[in-house]
């Protein structure tokens, strides 16, 4: 079995890729996908530590996260749909109605 640091490194790389995707891309769907990548990086960490400590808590939390994530995706996709109908596009930078 690979040492835990490998899992952590993979998680960090996935998280960084997700973060970069969120910050760099403007398409909201891609941004959502990047967010999913970050969430799953975290999940990877949870599972890795759960395995390391032979404790199920991390596993359970990861399962919960996946469940909540599914709900969150439902809401997020609904917002994206509404936004697309309203503005006719999926560019996140165009949504500046709350500009100060």
């Amino acid at each position, binding site marked *: 079995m690979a040492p835990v640091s490998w899992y952590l490194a993979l998680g960090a790389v996935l998280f960084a890729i997700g973060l970069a995707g969120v910050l760099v891309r403007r398409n909201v769907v891609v941004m959502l996908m990047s967010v999913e990548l970050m969430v799953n990086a975290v999940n990877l960490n949870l599972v890795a530590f759960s395995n390391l400590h032979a404790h199920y808590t991390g596993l359970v939390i990861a399962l919960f996260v996946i469940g909540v994530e599914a709900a969150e995706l439902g809401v997020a996709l609904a917002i994206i749909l509404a936004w697309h109908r309203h503005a006719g596009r999926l560019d996140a930078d165009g949504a500046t109605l*709350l*500009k100060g």
Partner: protein
Amino acid sequence: MLADRLLWLIPAFPFAAFLVNGLLGRRLTRNAAHWPALAAVGLSFASALLVLRHAVEHTSWQATLFTWITAGTLDVPLKLSADPLTAVMLVVVTGVSFLVHLYSVGYMHGDGGYPRFFAYLSLFTFSMLMLVLAGNFLLLYVFWEAVGLCSYLLIGFWFHKKSAADAGKKAFLVNRVGDFGFALGILLLIASTGSVDYQRVFAMVPQLPPATVTLICLLLFVGAAGKSAQLPLHVWLPDAMEGPTPVSALIHAATMVTAGVYMVARCNALFSASPTAMQVVAVVGTATAVMAAAIALTQTDLKRIMAYSTVSQLGFMFLGLGVGAWVGAIFHLFTHAFFKALLFLGSGSVMHAVGGDVDITRQGRLARHIPWTTTTFVVGSLALAGIFPFAGFFSKELILGAAFAGHHYVLFGFGVLAAGGTAFYVFRAVFSVFFGTREADALHPAPAAEAHGGHDDAGHGGSGHGHGAGGVHESPWVMLAPLVILAVMSLVAGWPLEHGFAEFLGRVLPSGEHGGEVPGALLAEALAIVMALAGLAFAWATYQKGAIDPDRIAGSWPRLYALSKNKFYVDELYDAVIVRPLLALARGALRFDLGAIDGLVNGVAAAARGWGAALARLQSGRVRDYLSWMALGLAVVLGVLIWR
């Protein structure tokens, strides 16, 4: 006891009338506002006569209502006191007030503020009566201020006229200066004697250090000078003529302005103990008498001449007080109240007749159109000039005689000079207005419009009197009756002097230092009357016969003429020395307020707004910007955690 209750009743009547007219005037009394006021003052007058009779038998008594202030050892009851001095003042105040009320019924007829006028008049009568009845200095001070307030209200009665409003303000402010001194004097009295009660204070005078007594007297005299328009605080009185003429007669001639004289006479125990203060009173009085008479010589507005005449006569009273002629001063106050009220009401009657302010150079030969006014006015003028056997003769002789007998020869000389000037200026007015060489403008049809121009000054604007060529008309009987009564009083008021009046007042006022006859006193008194006759004759020759050209005399001494015509430039001096620097200071303060104070407050607000505007740019509305900040924050937190 009846006499005690009487003391409270006298001021209570006018106060009740004030409440009725003040609270219900607009709705209830309206054009019948004079009835409660007249009834109240009439009842007060009757009560005052009863008090006078009681005072003849019992000399003095007090009536305490309740304790007003108790602070430490200081105990101030609400106490009225009566003695011969008070009794005389009460009769003068209520008597003249009643006649002025009566006169006002005709004079103020149709004025929009009719009930307000009578409310103020009643309030004034109440305050003045309380002032003379007050049994201690604190009560005196309260009503001293109250009459000042009434004076302010009545001078500015036609408040929509700027000059009247300004005159009211000026009177109030100048009086403040005097009242400040007065207040200091009372405080010093409290500090040094621990009491404000007349009897207790006067009893303690011998134990006080002379310097303290002098200082108290001088401070009290500052108050008297303010109220009684003595140099250098005389400037408000001539301007006070902006008020309705009955007000000028009552407040600014007969009663309120004599409050200073009354107060000094009341404090005779204090003043007698301080020769320095007496000297100051006498010198200020004489200087005022001479200067005001000199100004009156060249004024052309009838009411203004009378105003300066009042200032001058008040100066005479202070001269009398200063040389120890206490009885003489109060007697002059007594006679002056009648003839000066008469002259003012007469002036008002002339204004009523010609429909506006009276410029004596534009009047003439009014005598046959307004015979009653003319006759009474001449009687008043004779009394003012001090011609035998009119009232002014007796009182003025008493004062000048005392000045001579007390070896105050310089003061006596100036007094005689002022007496001569008095006779000249008042008969200059008489000849110019009622007789003279030219006809009044109002008697000609052409300047009818002009005559109407000044009409509202007389206070019955829009009342629909016809003031055309033939419009010069005699006043109604309600105005003439007071004139006739006052004329009779001006004739006979001097006679009771030898028949008990002097003895009556002498019970509370010291008789002065001149006990026996001084050689030459008779000659001195003769000199005074000769001067008066000379002044009269000179006025006759100048303004009746036309034998002397007044313009040529004025041309011979242009400087002196300008000095008199411009009232010795006192107003200009005050304007330059006090008013302008004060205004400059106020403007500076305004700039400081707008710049520094407001700048500070506005600066705080502007800074908040600036920061807000700068920070608002962070809120771009773009999700990615927020995410970038979050990522940055995360990186910082991580960095700190790792590198710590």
